[in-house]
C-alpha cells in the first residue's frame, strides 16, 4: 500500500498562526479580559479600516507614505549601487571610501534626524533622506561583499580570455554578485519601511506614521492598530514583489528551492 502525502500550499500554512492569534485576540476582546481602550476587538479595527478607506484617508496616507518610501528607496539604492559597485570592483577605491562608509554606518541612523531637519527642513526632503540612509547600508554591504567574493575560478576564465577590468566587472563580477545584491535590496526595503515610520512619527501631517501618532495622541488604539496592519501589509507586499522579481533575476542559481 502506498501513501501519498497531500501537499498543502505554503501560503495556507503561513496563515495558520495569524488565524490562531486573531481568534485569541477576538476571544480576549469579547470576554472583556482586556479593556477595549488597550486592545480593541478585531471587528472595530476592521470597521476603522473600512471607514478610513471610505473617507479617502487611507488612500491619502498610503500615497504619502508610499511616495516617501519610493523616493527614499530609489535614492538609497542608487547611491548604494554606484558606491558598492565602485568599492567592490576596485581595491584602490575601496581603500579610499570604505573606511569612511563603515564609520558612518556605526552612527545610529535615527541620530541623523536633527541634522537632516536642520539642513533639509521638516518637510519631505528630510524624510526621504532618512529613508535613503536606512536603505543604503544593507545594499552597499551586500553588493561590495558579493563582488569581492566572486569565485576566483570564474575570474580566471576572464583572465585567460584577456578581459579588461571593465569587461571583467560587467561580464563576471556584477552578474555573479546579483544574488547578494537581491538579498541587500530586500534588507534595504525592510529597513526603509522602518525608517519611513520613524520619520513620520517624528513629525508629519499625513501618512501612516501620522495615523499612528494621531491614534496615540487621541487615545484611539483602533487607529494605531489599523495603521500597523497597513504598514505590515505594505511591507509584506513590497517584499513579496521584490523577492519574486529577484527570483526571476537569479533563476540560474543551482540551489535547492526553499
Amino acid at each position, binding site marked *: 500500500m502506498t501513501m501519498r502525502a497531500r501537499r498543502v500550499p505554503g501560503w495556507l500554512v503561513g496563515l495558520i498562526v495569524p488565524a490562531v492569534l486573531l481568534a485569541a485576540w477576538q476571544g480576549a476582546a469579547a470576554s472583556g479580559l482586556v479593556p477595549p481602550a488597550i486592545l480593541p476587538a478585531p471587528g472595530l479595527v476592521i470597521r476603522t479600516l473600512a471607514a478610513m478607506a471610505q473617507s479617502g484617508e487611507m488612500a491619502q496616507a498610503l500615497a504619502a507614505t508610499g511616495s516617501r518610501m519610493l523616493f527614499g528607496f530609489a535614492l538609497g539604492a542608487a547611491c548604494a549601487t554606484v558606491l558598492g559597485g565602485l568599492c567592490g570592483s576596485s581595491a584602490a577605491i575601496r581603500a579610499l571610501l570604505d573606511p569612511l562608509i563603515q564609520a558612518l554606518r556605526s552612527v545610529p541612523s535615527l541620530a541623523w534626524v536633527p541634522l537632516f531637519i536642520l539642513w533639509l527642513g521638516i518637510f519631505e526632503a528630510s524624510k526621504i533622506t532618512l529613508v535613503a540612509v536606512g536603505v543604503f547600508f544593507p545594499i552597499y554591504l551586500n553588493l561590495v561583499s558579493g563582488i569581492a567574493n566572486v569565485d576566483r575560478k570564474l575570474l*580566471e*576564465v576572464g*583572465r*585567460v580570455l584577456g578581459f579588461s577590468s571593465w569587461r571583467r566587472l560587467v*561580464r563576471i563580477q556584477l*552578474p555573479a554578485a546579483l544574488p547578494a545584491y537581491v538579498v541587500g535590496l530586500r534588507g534595504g526595503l525592510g529597513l526603509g519601511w522602518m525608517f519611513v515610520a520613524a520619520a513620520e512619527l517624528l513629525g508629519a501631517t499625513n501618512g501612516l506614521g501620522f495615523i499612528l501618532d494621531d491614534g496615540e495622541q487621541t487615545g484611539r488604539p483602533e487607529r494605531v492598530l489599523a495603521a500597523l496592519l497597513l504598514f505590515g501589509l505594505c511591507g509584506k507586499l513590497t517584499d513579496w514583489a521584490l523577492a519574486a522579481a529577484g527570483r526571476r533575476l537569479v533563476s*540560474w*542559481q543551482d540551489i535547492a528551492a526553499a
Partner: protein
Amino acid sequence: MPYPLRINGLEKSYGGQHVLGPIDLDLEAGTITAIIGRSGSGKTTLLRCLGGLEQPTAGRITIGDGQVSPADIGYVFQEPRLMPWLTVAKNTGFGLAGFTKPARDLAIAEALDLVGLPDAGALLPKQLSGGMAQRVALARALAPHPKLILLDEPFSALDPFTREQMQDHLLHLHEHYGATMVLITHDMDEALALALRIIVLDGPPGRIIGDFSPDLPRPADRVSAAFFVWKRRLTALFTRQSAPPPEAAFSDQQPAQENFP
C-alpha cells in the same frame, strides 16, 4: 596556422619556495603534447605560466612569433567553470570579442556542433551533466579558433566512459582545427591515446624526467601490446624511485618502434 611553443629556462617560485624548473621545451606547431606527472610535480603551474595565469620567476615563453593575443590561446580548466547565469550558447561565445552578431552565432553553432551539443544552446549550466558542462567549456575555448589550446586535466572529473568519449572528441577536434595542444594529465591511458609526445615531470621542484614520442597508431588501440608496454614504461618511472636524479632520466627522441618492436 597553429603556433609552435618554445620554453627556455622557465622557473617558478612561490614566496621563496622553488616549485618548478628550469624547464626547456620546444613544441612543434599543430601537435598534441601531453605533460604527465604526479600531484605536486608542477604540471599545472607550468600550464598556468603558459596561459598567463602565473608570472614565471625566470625564463622565457615564446608562443608563435611572440605577438599573441589572448584570443589565440584557448584554455580548458579541470572544472567547466561556466558562468552559471549564461546559457550554453552565451557561455560558448563568452570569449568572442569584436565579432558581428552573425559571425558570433556561426562560431558558437560551429563550436557546439564540434563538441556534439548542437541542440543544447538554450540550456543553463545547472541543467547539464558533468560531461556536457565540460564539453561546453571545450566549445568556449574553441569558439575563437585559437592557435594554441591548453588543457589542464580537462577530463579528470568525468566517469571513465564519458572520459574516453571526450578523448575521442578531442582527437576529432584536433583533426578539424589542427591547433597546437598541450594537455596536462595524470592518466597514462589518456596521454598515450591522445599525444604524439609525452613529457614527464617530477618534483618538487618540477623538472622534466622523460620525453617520449610513442609512435602509436591513431586512434589508439588501448588493448594493444604496444599500448600496454608504453603504459608500463611510463608507470615504471614513478614506481621505481620517488624522484630520479637528472642523469637517471632518459629521453627518447628516437622513433618508438626502435625500442619497442
